[in-house]
């Protein structure tokens, strides 16, 4: 597609449930990033993939968060045992290669009740 796409656009879940968020990067982009944006703040880095491997996962807040990119294209962010504090907009970005301009998707708004 023309841009980065993310699904679902909105996700409401209950505390303790498992969720998966999907990101489709721009075709041909080898680098993929996940960020999280809380209300009124700038996005915060979670994890960066170069190809299939997670090159930097230093932003993941704890071991309930995990992300994969098995074929070097689509990525899934997985959150186990969700907590109310996980509520935020989860943004995905991609770039042609590492260090290039990052293009952001529309985000998934996660609400944990």
């Amino acid at each position, binding site marked *: 597609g023309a841009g980065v796409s993310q699904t679902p656009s909105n996700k409401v879940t209950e505390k303790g449930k498992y969720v998966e968020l999907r990101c489709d990067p721009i075709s041909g982009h080898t680098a993929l990033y996940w960020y999280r944006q809380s209300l009124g703040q*700038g996005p*915060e880095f979670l994890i960066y993939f*170069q190809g299939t491997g997670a090159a930097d996962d230093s932003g993941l807040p704890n071991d309930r968060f995990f992300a994969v990119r098995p074929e070097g294209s689509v990525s899934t962010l997985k959150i186990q045992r969700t907590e109310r504090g996980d509520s935020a907009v989860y943004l995905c970005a991609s770039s042609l290669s590492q260090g290039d301009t990052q293009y*952001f998707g529309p985000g998934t708004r996660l609400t944990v009740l």
Partner: protein
Amino acid sequence: GIQVEQSPPDLILQEGANSTLRCNFSDSVNNLQWFHQNPWGQLINLFYIPSGTKQNGRLSATTVATERYSLLYISSSQTTDSGVYFCAVALRGGGYNKLIFGAGTRLAVHP
């Protein structure tokens, strides 16, 4: 870690006015991007500008890397310019792919 400070935090303009937004950063950077987040939450790329000056229509940006600041100029502002403007940087050296965002400048343009 690197600090990214944006000013002013809030800005209210009449349509047609000009404005300058500032971004200060505390370390050498490999990447600097300006984004506009529209009222629907979409982050739109404005400039990739680790150094130098670029212009795109009514917008222009200048980064002086040696003095660790960047400026975004908006001329003849329109109501569609409203939203939040973010500056984001990535460090030179280790972690250069990780964008660190400032807190943003919230712009409201009134007709």
